[in-house]
Each structure stands twice: as C-alpha cells, then as structure tokens.
C-alpha cells in the first residue's frame, strides 16, 4: 500500500515537527557539550589544543560522518523552526494591542530570535575558525593561534559573547521543552527538567564565554 513515509508524516504535522526539532536539538546539544569540553583545553596551552584538533581529523571518514549528521540535524532543526515561526504568524494574523505574559520566560517566547542569532553565529564561526575566511590571521592547524587572533579583536569577542548568551537562552527553554515535545515530561518531572535546563544553560554559556574573557584578561595568551 503506498503511503507517505513515517518521516514525511512526522514532518507534515506540527507535533511531529516539534519532535524532530527535539531530537535534532538533542544531537546538537550533545555536539555542543563535546565541543565545549574540547575547547576548554585552551587553558592547557597551545600544544594540547592543537594536538586535540589534529586528533579530530585523524579519520576523515569519521570526521565527515559526524559532520554529515550534524549538518542534517542542523538543517532539520533550522528549517522546522523557521516553518513553525511562519505558522505562528498565520495562526494569529491580528496581534493583541496589549499582551501581558504571565508565566513564560523570555527565553521561551524568544526561541526564534535566539535561534536566528545562533544560526548567524554558526556561519560566522565556521568562516572564522574552520575555513579561516574571516579570521584576521588564519593559520591552518594552529587552532590556538587562530583563537587568539579572533579574540584579539573586540568585535570577535563581542560576537562570541552575544552568541553564547543566545545559546544559553536557547537551552534554558529548549533543554526542558524537548522532553515536553517528545512526550517524556510528566507533572512530577517537569520542575526538575526545568531546573536541569537552567543549570545546563548556565554551565554552557559560562563555559564558552570563559574562553574569550580569558583571552581578554590575559589568562590565555
């Protein structure tokens, strides 16, 4: 019997789309955690960080597999988010003259904005530290050097810090609402999940911003 594939069925329904966002969000979150742990080696000096970077590229197959998964997750996440944001406008074509939120966090209401900021940042970040196109002094393989080059400029620091605050906001809501979207949250677990999300958001935001700030204050040089 011909019928649309399950993935297509999921994609065509708002709940399915949200579930896909939750799963892809989780994949991206796992990557971000790994990325942070790797990045923190910057505090252990240039040799350690550069060796770590080299290690990541040992197997091109593995590297490109991971990149493919990440790219797919990213595309699905972004496309679903953008579509849903359009849907939202269609669902309420006339806005309220006065609207007062009574329970929601700014993070929850601004997911599209924090998401777009992160999207913009990812593009910039790849151009900066992976491809080196916008890096002021890019040297392939010398990650430590490149990082210092970026954070040597106020603009680089500012972009990075703003993006990491956006990431914190995004995770603050995303890290518990994904359980809601996947139908895993219960009345009892919800408060715990929300606390977990706040904690994770803070940890990642602080962890990532620690690097440019360390460069600025001269701890890392």
């Amino acid at each position, binding site marked *: *019997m011909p*019928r649309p594939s*399950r993935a297509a*069925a*999921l994609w065509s*329904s*708002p*709940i*399915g*789309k*949200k*579930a896909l966002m939750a799963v892809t969000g989780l994949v991206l979150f796992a990557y971000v955690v790994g990325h942070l742990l790797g990045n923190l080696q910057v505090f252990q000096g240039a040799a350690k960080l550069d060796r770590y970077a080299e290690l990541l590229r040992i197997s091109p197959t593995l590297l490109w597999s991971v990149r493919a998964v990440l790219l797919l997750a990213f595309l699905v996440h972004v496309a679903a988010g953008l579509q*849903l944001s359009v*849907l*939202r406008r*269609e*669902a*309420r*074509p*006339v*806005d*309220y*003259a*006065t*609207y*007062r*939120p*009574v*329970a*929601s966090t700014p993070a*929850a*209401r601004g*997911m599209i904005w924090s998401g777009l900021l992160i999207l913009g940042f990812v593009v910039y970040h790849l151009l900066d530290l992976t491809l080196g196109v916008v890096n002021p002094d890019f040297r392939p393989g010398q990650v430590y050097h490149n990082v210092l080059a970026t954070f040597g400029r106020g603009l680089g620091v500012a972009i990075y810090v703003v993006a990491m605050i956006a990431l914190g906001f995004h995770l603050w*809501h995303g890290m*518990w*609402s994904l*359980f*809601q*979207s*996947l*139908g*895993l*949250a*219960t*009345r009892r677990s*919800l408060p715990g999940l929300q606390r977990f999300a706040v904690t994770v958001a803070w940890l990642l935001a602080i962890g990532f911003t620690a690097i440019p700030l360390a460069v600025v204050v001269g701890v890392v040089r």
Partner: protein
Amino acid sequence: MRIVLEIWRQRDPWADGRFVRYEVGDVNEHMSFLEMLDVLNQALVRRGEMPVAFDSDCREGICGTCGFLVNGEAHGPLRNATICQTHMRHFHDGDVLRLEPWRAAAFPVLRDLVVDRGALDRIVAAGGYVSVRTGGAPDANALPVPKTDADRAMEAAACIGCGACVAACPNASAALFTGAKITHLSLLPQGQPERPLRVRSMTEQARAEGFGHCTSIGECAAVCPAGIQLEVIARMNRDFLRAAFSRAAGEPLTVLPVTSPMRRYEAQPPGARETADPAEEPAER
C-alpha cells in the same frame, strides 16, 4: 470605585474595529466583572447606543462561554478563574482596563468581544469521544479503573472549553484544549481502542483549523480557569508519536472539512454590513 474601560468595538466579522473608552462610576467591589459590564451596557442602552457584546451564560465559571483579555491577560488578573468569577475587589479605583477579544485565525471576531469558537467543537468531533452506541453498555462496575487514573482523567476532563489557552498562547495553539481531551480518554480503559486514531484525527483537525503549534511556552496552563496542566500536552505528544509508529498509522482520519470560519456568516444580507459603525457613537461621556 470608578473604572475606566477601553473596549474593542467591532460591528461584525468584516468590519474594522477599534478601542472605545468608557467610564463606569459607582462600581461595587462585590460585583463580578461581567456585572460591571452589565451596568455599563444598561447605561448605553438607555442612551440608545449598542451595548458592548460579550459572551456569558452560567456566570459561575463552568460553562466556558465568557472570556476576553483584560489588560493583556486572558480572563483577567485572577489565576484559575474565568472572568465571570473575577470580582471587582481585585481592581482599584481609577484603574484603566483594556478589554480585547480572543485573537486567533481560528476564532474570528463576531462582534466586539464575541468570537466564534466552533473550531473547538470540530476538534472534539474529530475524535474526542469513545465510540459507544446508546444501550448495550456493560455494567458500569464491570471495568474497574484505578482511582488514581480516574482522578487524573477527571482533572483533564475538567476543561471548560473557553479558549483562554488559545488566546494566551503566543502561537494561538489549541494544544492544551486538545491535550486535555486526549489525556482524559487515554487514561481510561474505555478510551484505549481508539487511542491512536483519536490523537491523529484531533491534532490534524486542530492543524487544519489554523491553530498554531505548541512550543511549551506555558501561558496556556497559567491562565487556564480549570487548572489543566501542561502535562496533558506531553501526553498528547507521546500518544501522537506512538500512534505515528503504530500499526494504526495508516488508518484514515476522521476529520471534518474545514470551511472558512467566515463562510457561515456570508449569507447575511449585504446591506446590513454597511450600516453605521456603533463605535462611531460618542466615545466619551
């Protein structure tokens, strides 16, 4: 006390609306909010003006007929209460209150603060029931239901269908409403056989009606007069995902065709639409 109101006046679904300012002196703190509007309307009628149209019926918080935003909050500032159950003791002398109808593509404004919530009826029609014919039901005690399940089903079934969840949701989503009915029936043994089809049909109907999606913002549960919890949405999502991967995934849905919500009213004689806008009447007094 004296209350200043800025009320959305709109003659019919096609007309443009605007806020009109009224003042009600002599407001007693024991009045309900709607009784305060009654006082205003009586004065308007005596002056020959069209009173402010607003929906209400039981005025004891159970029928779900009433509802509008007061200063941007669905059902006003009192939590877990409908606007008919909100009394003027919660306001202060000289307060300026802006009253605005529920706004959503699926809830067209019919007049002033009155909206059409027929979409909610169609969501229920799409599957919010147990298919049991009258007669022939087994003895009520033949199928025991654990008390905790029955109690939680009751909590979800307490939804009054007022639409405040849709109104308060930045996405105009009906997820709390739909999730409440799905949760009620999926917690009970009677609701099991139709569980996969129900969740697929009801959520599809909600989508087709033009309601938005849920982003777990939580405004819905916060303003819900019946205390429906966000959990019902998680349960709906779980049922949906389970259904999408179940054997029932290919069964045809039982959804109703969605006609434009406005179509029903288009039979109106065209002349009637062009008469004077009541909001053009004197705004201040």
